[in-house]
């Protein structure tokens, strides 16, 4: 994930089903005043650092989702939210923010590429 205006890059490296390494890179522009780097580094502390105040609740969700996936309670992951039968084939549409359309598209793409040439 690249944030151009503040010269910051976040790189997500999947390691295992239950482990992801998140790298955060800050960049210093050649010849730019220190204040710009100071801002980049501040953003990195406030948002990306493990000590960030805004990250904890997201991480809690990831951990709970992981615990749910690891349980035997239900073999299905429900991604039906805001499903519409006319989704397939549509491009660049704007929908409600809680729609799981993008997850459905991801699995449609997976299905397409896994069966390509079969």
């Amino acid at each position: 994930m690249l944030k151009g205006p503040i010269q910051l890059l976040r790189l997500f490296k999947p390691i295992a089903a239950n482990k992801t390494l998140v790298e955060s890179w800050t960049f210093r522009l050649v010849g730019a005043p220190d204040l710009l780097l100071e801002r980049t580094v501040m953003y990195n502390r406030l948002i990306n650092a493990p000590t960030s105040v805004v990250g904890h609740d997201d991480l809690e969700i990831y951990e709970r989702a992981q615990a749910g996936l690891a349980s035997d309670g239900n073999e299905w992951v429900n991604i039906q939210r805001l499903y519409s039968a006319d989704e397939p084939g549509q491009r660049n549409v704007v929908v409600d923010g809680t729609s799981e359309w993008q997850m459905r598209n991801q699995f449609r793409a997976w299905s397409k590429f896994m069966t390509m040439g079969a």
Partner: protein
Amino acid sequence: MADAQSVPRLEQVHDHGRVVGVSAIPTDQQLVDFVLREARLLDLQRLDDWLDLFAEDGHYWMPVEWGQSDPKLTTSLMYEDKLLLKIRIDRLKGKATYSQSPRSRCHHVLQTPQVDERDDTERRYVTWTPLHYVESRADQQTLYAAWATHHLTLVDDALKIRLKACRSRQL
């Protein structure tokens, strides 16, 4: 425990031959007591009282590299002024903060703080405190080893934190 950490007021202070005037000089023991009390307030979750220990321009710094000297142009775990620390505390009080339900608890085991620097003229005092820090969150318990450096000053005869720097684990 008293809420204010007052120190004795002296009529005149002679320091390096200069008369500083009416002032107050904390003893080494008062500096040590201040650091111990700071940890106690955190352990007791008296976070508003803890925040009051900081001077208005105070900062809390957690560097990420060994020997790191610049908090602004190099990456740190945190470098927060009093406003950001207040936001951190207010967030813990929020009902929607579900990652902190139940709240984490902590326990500091401090070595006796050592007074590394003392400048009574500038009201500048630096202590160094090695510590073990145990934190429990839900059913997990984590142990950290750290060195805490407190840069203290006097504001209206009360000791206040200008900078607390906490170097953790392998740092």
